[in-house]
């Protein structure tokens, strides 16, 4: 695993970015998350060498910047995808792909591969201005991969897309990044994108790097910045253990326990379901607690675990963190009254009844 180590300062007339010492483990997808205007894009551009910064950057053994010495952008080996794609408007889609190949020593076979994987064959002779937002991003992604980068940098690639296009592009990004095995930085202000794609999370706020942690660690904080108006969220990872749906449902193994999800939610996303790891999203407010295995309920998904922590949210509400036997965590939100009636305390065995599960392929 490579590390991207940096300590950068960027001073703009009305904004200052100061990262402090950061060592980013480049493994899978690292989300750079924070509210709009917190300096995410500036950080990425400073890392790429596109905006002048003071300080140091090193990718593994390769020094990108040290004091006044700075490796120019074109020698850093970065694949970039911009908010608007950043396609060269005077070249066709194929011309854009060739532009990358001609400078990276890529082959026509590489091109054919990514054209196929990203569904670009019908677009090759088109001009960028005729493409839809989602098509532009797919071309930009293929082009970035054909540049054979050491790091991929995606600057809010989905912020300009409608939710349907976004839903199609998200699994595609995940798939190709995994397949290309290129460590990826993803800028986003959407918790949903983080929960679906990220392995690591770099949290930013007002020009400062707050924290670097795994997605699970970032989500286990009771007041994680990833929680939006819907409250606390848990992301459970599981493996699809069966290909043929039963009553339209597929079992997903979470540790030793099974959860049932609607098969159409998985299958609609063109993903190889056999033993694929998928992420399940559970809202804390959709979780009900019981002291014994419940019976006579319509709820299909019940997970057994133990109370790990209890955090009062308000005078009458408590957020409970449950640890599952396989180490994954699950949040539940209950009233202070229920908490008292059930006599909840740390280490207590508990059953979590999950009313609805979102599938995030």
């Amino acid at each position, binding site marked *: 695993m490579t590390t991207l180590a940096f300590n950068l300062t960027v001073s703009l007339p009305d904004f200052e970015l100061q990262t402090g010492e950061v060592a980013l483990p480049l493994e899978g997808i690292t989300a750079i998350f924070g509210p709009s205007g917190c300096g995410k894009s500036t950080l990425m551009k400073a890392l*790429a060498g*596109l905006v002048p910064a003071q300080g140091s950057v090193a990718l593994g053994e390769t020094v990108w910047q040290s004091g006044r010495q700075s490796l*120019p*952008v*074109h*020698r*850093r*080996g*970065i*694949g*970039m995808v*911009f908010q*608007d*794609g*950043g*396609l*060269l*408007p*005077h070249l066709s889609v194929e011309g854009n792909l060739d*532009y*990358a190949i001609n*400078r*990276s020593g890529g082959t026509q076979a590489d091109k054919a591969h990514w054209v196929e994987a990203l569904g670009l064959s019908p677009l090759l002779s088109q*001009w960028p*201005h005729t493409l839809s937002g989602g098509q532009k991003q797919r071309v*930009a992604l293929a*082009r*970035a991969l054909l*540049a054979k*980068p050491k790091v991929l*940098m995606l600057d809010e690639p989905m912020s300009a897309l409608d939710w349907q296009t976004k839903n199609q592009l998200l699994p595609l990004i995940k798939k190709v990044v995994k397949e290309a095995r290129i460590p990826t930085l993803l800028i986003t202000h959407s918790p949903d994108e983080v929960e679906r794609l990220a392995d690591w999370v770099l949290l930013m706020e007002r020009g400062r790097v707050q924290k670097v942690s795994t997605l699970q660690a970032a989500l286990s904080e009771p007041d994680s910045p990833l929680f939006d108006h819907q409250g606390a969220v848990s992301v459970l990872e599981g493996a699809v253990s069966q290909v043929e749906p039963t009553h339209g449902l597929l079992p997903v193994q979470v540790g030793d326990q099974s959860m049932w999800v609607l098969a159409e939610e998985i299958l609609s996303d063109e993903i190889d379901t056999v033993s694929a790891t998928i992420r399940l999203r559970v809202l804390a407010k959709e979780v009900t607690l019981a002291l014994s295995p419940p019976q006579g309920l319509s709820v299909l998904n019940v997970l057994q675990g133990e109370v790990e922590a209890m955090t009062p949210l308000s005078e009458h509400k408590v957020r409970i963190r449950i640890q599952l036997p396989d180490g994954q965590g699950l949040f539940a939100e209950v009233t202070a009254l229920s908490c008292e009636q059930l006599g909840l305390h740390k280490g207590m065995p508990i059953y979590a009844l999950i009313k609805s599960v979102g599938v995030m392929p």
Partner: protein
Amino acid sequence: MSFLHLTPDEWQSLWLTLKLATYTSGILLVIGMPLAWWLAFSRCRCVSLVSAVVALPLVLPPAVLGFYLLITLGPYGWVGETLEAWGFHHLAFSFEGILIGSILYSLPFAVQPLRDAFASMPQTPIQAAASMGASPLDRFFTVILPLARSGILSAVVIAFAHTLGEFGVVIMLGGSIPGETKVVSIAIYDYTQELNYEAAHRLSAILLITSFLILALFYAINRRLMAPMKP
């Protein structure tokens, strides 16, 4: 097509005019591009001053520009004097002199479209090209020039057409020396002074039609050139 029966002198004037316009637009492209780039992106406070200087020929009577050039480039001006001291000829009443005059006179017409083209150019394609391993020179030729092509075409064509019609600067600085400074507009002026309206008519018609054709061609090319990039 009786107006095409030109005298050798008239052919010479025409040829001289085309030569002057070609040299002017070519040189303006070379010096206009870095100047326009600097004006578009420099953070220096002097940008407004330099912009004003570049734009001066738009508002000054050509006679004023011609007058100052005459006293600078002529035998008693500091440029002319220096040249003479080094054994060269001063620049008043010479082709080189009116070429310098033309360049200054058409400078704003070349710099303005170039500057607009550079300033309005989207930055992400250039940054994307850099990320794909394109060096600054590579980016200049493969991204910046193609993206600025409409501005470049405008600069060249307008500088060329503008020079075709130049009069005031030439008459102040160059006079009317056949084969050296007697461009078509000067020849028309001379004919009119001699009341030779037929000859003046001939040359005027040629200039009018040529200018029109150049501009018509320019707009046609520009539309086609920009078609694949229209947002």
